[in-house]
């Protein structure tokens, strides 16, 4: 089953969700393409941050920063970037 396991409670037989049982999900091994940001082109409009389905993009000083641990490589960021600052590169 896909649902993650939870946290054991003080009540016998009651399984809990939340607490330390939730957090980011490591999916780096899902990717076939990796987004690469060209900081010189980034206009910091942050559309990629809003559109990223994985919440994997942060607002950096220099521009968009992608946490590749959480990126599945869908390429929405590259498709939506108005400045063409993100390129999808095949993973080796």
């Amino acid at each position, binding site marked *: *089953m*896909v*649902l*993650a*396991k939870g946290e054991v409670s003080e009540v016998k037989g009651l*399984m809990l*969700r*939340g607490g*330390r*049982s*939730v*957090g*980011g*999900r*490591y*999916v780096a091994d*899902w990717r076939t393409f990796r987004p690469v940001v060209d900081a010189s082109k980034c206009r910091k409009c942050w559309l990629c941050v*809003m*559109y*990223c*389905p*994985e*919440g*994997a993009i942060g607002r950096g000083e220099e521009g968009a920063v992608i*946490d590749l*641990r*959480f*990126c*599945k*490589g*869908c*390429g*929405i960021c*590259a*498709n*939506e970037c108005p400045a063409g600052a993100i390129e*999808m590169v095949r993973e080796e």
Partner: protein
Amino acid sequence: MTEFDVMPGNKAVAYGVKLSRVEVVPIYPITPQTTIVEYIGEFIANGELEAEYIQAEGEHSAMGMAIGASLAGARAFTASSSQGVAYMHECIAQAPGYRTPIVMAVANRTLGWYWALGPDYSDIMPELNLGWIVLMVESNQECLDTVIQLYRVAEDPRVLLPAMMSLDGFYLSYSYEKVLIPDQEVVDEFLPPYVAKYPVDPTISDKWPAPGLPPALHTTYRRLFEEVLGDAKRVIKEVDEEFREIFGRGYGGLLEEYKCEGAEAVLVTMGSMTTAARRAVDRLRREGKRIGLVKLRALRPFPKEEFRRIAEEVNVIGVVDRMVLHGTGGGGVFADLKSALYSLEERPKLLNFVAGMGGDDISVEDFMAMGRKVHRVLETGRVEREVEFVEHPLPPSRGPVPMEKMPIYPSSGGCAGCGASIALRNILDVLGLNTVVINPPSCATVNYSAQVSVPWVLANYAAGPAYETGVFRAYRIKGKTGRIAVIGFSGDGGTVDIGLQALSGAAERGESMIWICYDNEAYMNTGVQRSGSTPLFSRTTSTPVGKLWRGKGQRRKNMVLIMAAHRIPYIATASIAYLPDLRRKVKRAAEITAAGRGLAYIHIQQPCPTGWYFPVDKTVEVARLAVETGAWPLLEIEEGKMRINFKPRKLKPIGEYLRLQGRFRHLTEEEIAEIQRVVEEDWRSWLELEKMGKLPWY
């Protein structure tokens, strides 16, 4: 010559249905049953089976339709699993009294409690004692053959009762095996068309099955039902025997004995686990253990007499149960067997193994261990532990990445390019940590319920808005209205189909909470079946494109107007391509509900690369085109005042939107023109409503 193919159990069931020339097939998707009805849909779409195919709005209705069709004299089939069977329960209880020989396949899956997709018999357990015939199957071949056999049994005038075939989810439903497909002519000879004796049909009969009885007759009719079920045992055996003579395959009638010659102990198994148990018994026999195997085929009617005969020959029986009768300490078949043997003068020792719950695998080694325990009792004559739970440790897996607290953590198990994720992340970002999510089953459940730090309550499918109402009322009585955002987050199935009744109730009562429908325009979680929100001509797995079918034949429900008819304070549509608009609407909904003004409804279109068949990087692009072409207008109605939020000077041609998506690839120019016409017609209606200022019924 008999054909064969390699196919999953669900397809074997569909072949059984096709060969039985079933006339009415009401369906509702649920894992792991869904592909049964998809395969049947393909047969009908391609003209290989002539049948009425009805896409119900919930399982309760699906069983209602099957009963109606059977009452009217048609051969009816339906299928379900787990929660779906439970939701049907009321109708299931009605079918035996109406003497409707429906056949239903149940692809087993654990019921309620802690949710999982894997099989155990907790789903059929509540249905066992209502007067249905319940047969268990071991292989895909047995799936096909048993459907045909069951129609013969169910329609036999000595029986005339509904029948359930229980096949293990995943182990049979999705596993491929070689299956022989009998010739149609031979099946036709074995199974003649169904002729109802007292159909609800004034052109044939002036009498019909009664719905009620005076109390004085109830006990009598319960006794008569027990006699009929007793007769059914004979019919099941006869039909299986005749089937074996004609098709060369039989399944032992009510039960099958395997390597029982000279056995002093037996294991009792049922369903697909039996195959592994056979291998274990083979090995134990080679080790010199005097052990055999009984495969229970008929769970109802229970083969009491056969077991009594077996009990006279053996000293120990070990029952392997894939269901627990909570509160009794053991399994269901164990309880049945114990009561069946109690009145014997000399009883064998009984052991019970509860195993394989929730789909946990029961291996050959597990059966070896059980067999040895049974054999040990044979040697010592002592039962140390009557009931044993066969448990396995949790396999290791990568845990979550620890992070600073936020409403929803990065990434998920969802598909790459998921639009629902974009919607959910923005919604929770607006609402913050003091939010509670109520969620009827959907892909969001599977993918995002384990990614959030805000409480996420999985509600039963038809009861999403009801769960939410309960939460809202609890906060209200505790004086917390406005301090916690209560949102329903549901797919289109949970909103426009199975959830509509509860949503309508909540809207009319003025429950001050937010309901958000993330609409991917089909049942994506079960593999893309049509919903009431699927657009015209869209290909889904239950509206396939074939010789006779061109995708979905109907237009979608207009949920905005349905909600407006309830005069709720806030209704909006939104798109994942227009996030500032979406976020503003979520905020407005939160303000209105915090003020206790009533239900706020937001309907978000959410393109799904997996179900709409477009490249994963195009999710937002497709969503934007939906708005620009008018296929998904952005609008809101606050206290009856309607406003279109995005009004292009000219709508883009619908083809630009449709062409990106595989679900519309089959469309002809005429069909595209028809969609264009429908979209423009809707667009004009919205413009006219906007001109009215305030909708007249507010």
